[in-house]
């Protein structure tokens, strides 16, 4: 934590941490405490008076059918995004791990979607699935599926899942490939000598050995799907049709900035904060464990 040898006491360290601490206090701690404070207030319809109501905003949320649905939807969305993009990345990394020549070329071609902004990913996918013009509705029409994510909630949900998972494949691929390449070759060779084929080796040796990476990626993907996908939802569906793609982050934004329900939005923010804290704790505990190995 601290160096054994350090500089003598002076005012310098305070000056050095000052910018970081100042920004943290002004733009992080203060707004977050404001959110907590506001979550205990209810404002009347005209914004003239506010009343301190303790946990009423939270009680309202717990009883709110729409909020609970949004909660369930977010969990489904996150699980689907994590499952889709992690399994695609796992398969691709498993094959890329076998490649001797051209491995870097494959990696280069696989990782660049990481650099595409979520909202752009949304724009690309919404264009490909545009009901009148897009290439996929055209192909789906041939097999008798009438694709329209503007009207069909299931289609809309599928579209945002595709866009979100597509963008995350690069990240997962990179971590899976690195994990597989760090497995000692002698282990895999020993398994091969004992007669285990490629599939057997993958299922019985490689996959269990990289399970820490899988767990790490699960947390990262969940955080990504919870918080970083706002741009995708906003560009592709705006939460619709009929709230079928309103995930929690989008609802906080919508209730606060569009619906101007300050107390309710603040209460939702507080719940989200608790979720982030829980996820961060899980992530850090896991890293501590990995250091011990």
């Amino acid at each position, binding site marked *: 934590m601290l160096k054994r040898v350090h500089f003598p006491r002076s005012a310098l*360290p*305070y000056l*050095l941490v000052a910018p970081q601490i100042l920004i943290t206090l002004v733009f992080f701690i203060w707004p*977050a405490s404001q959110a907590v404070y*506001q979550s205990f207030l209810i404002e009347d319809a005209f914004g003239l008076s506010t009343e301190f109501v303790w946990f009423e905003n939270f009680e309202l949320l717990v009883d709110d059918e729409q909020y609970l649905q949004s909660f369930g939807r977010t969990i489904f969305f996150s699980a689907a995004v994590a499952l889709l993009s992690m399994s695609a990345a796992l398969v691709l990394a498993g094959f890329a791990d076998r490649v001797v020549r051209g491995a870097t070329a494959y990696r280069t071609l696989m990782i660049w979607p990481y650099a595409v902004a*979520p909202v752009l990913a949304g724009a690309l996918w919404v264009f490909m699935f545009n009901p009148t013009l897009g290439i996929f509705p055209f192909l789906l029409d041939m097999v008798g599926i009438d694709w329209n994510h503007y009207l069909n909630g299931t289609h809309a949900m599928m579209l945002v899942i595709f866009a979100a998972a597509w963008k995350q494949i690069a990240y997962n691929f990179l971590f899976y490939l690195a994990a597989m390449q760090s497995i000692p070759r002698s282990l895999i060779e020993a398994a091969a000598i004992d007669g285990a084929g490629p599939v057997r080796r993958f299922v019985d040796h490689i996959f269990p050995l990289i399970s820490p990476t899988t767990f790490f990626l699960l947390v990262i993907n969940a955080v990504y799907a919870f918080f970083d996908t706002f741009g995708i939802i906003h560009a592709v569906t705006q939460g619709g049709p009929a709230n079928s793609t309103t995930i929690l982050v989008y609802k906080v934004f919508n209730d606060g900035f569009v619906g101007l329900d300050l107390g309710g939005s603040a209460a939702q923010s507080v719940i989200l904060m608790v979720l982030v804290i829980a996820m961060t704790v899980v992530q850090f505990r896991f890293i501590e464990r990995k250091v011990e190995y």
Partner: protein
Amino acid sequence: MVENRPVLNVITHLVLIIGIVIVALPIWITFVASTHDAVRMTQAPIPMLPGTHFWENFSQTLLGSGLSGTETAPVWRMLLNSLTMALMIALGKIAISLISAFAIVYFKFPFRMLFFWLIFVTLMLPVEVRILPTFEVVADLGMLNSYWGLSIPLIASATATFMFRQVFLTIPDEMLESARIDGAGPLRFFWDILIPLSRTNIAALFVILFIYGWNQYLWPLLITTDTDMTTIVMSIKQMLEAAEQSPQWNIIMMTALLAMLPPVFVVVAMQKLFVQGLTETDK
């Protein structure tokens, strides 16, 4: 390679090529759309092979008014805004994290741990969960529609501070001892020894943070109302809305292409640093 299996090798390359095609398909379609004229892009099915209007669309998007019939800033202006914001965020984060990590590792002073935990807490408060109150703070400070407002609230970073802390801890104590014997003060030591020693880490972090800054969406969306301050990533959404009335997919997709080009270039050109930065900051 453990054993030689020709059939499996063929399957391996086949699967990887299919994977790359799926990953690249959205970009290919974007590129193709940006090479056709507006009329062709209203006829279904849309083309899958490039057309001949690339440069025409390019100059109309970049230098012309962009999408006709909407009140947006010219695209070159938006690219400039994005670049400024991304650089300010990346360089700002690196600068304040370097000095605070230096203070926490190399000095013993009251409230050191309190500061450390304060920085740690920022990790748990992404913009998305505190948008309204943060917006109010920025509005009260009069920072709406400014580069400061776009970048400063995003500059505090626990991950960067932790990373530099980790780097500094691996630097042997003898370095500091000998520097002090030679009469170097803290700032001299920081500037002449710590910074040069952590040069690759700074570069790797820069790559990640540049992409992070460039791709910001929700925050610029909230605090910029002036069209002159729009970033390129934000503008895509406005264009998509406009497209519902008058579709000009060639221009929209050209803009999307221009918006993703700088960060994609950074990832591909500095791949080694990118991978290093990604694995370091998230561990």
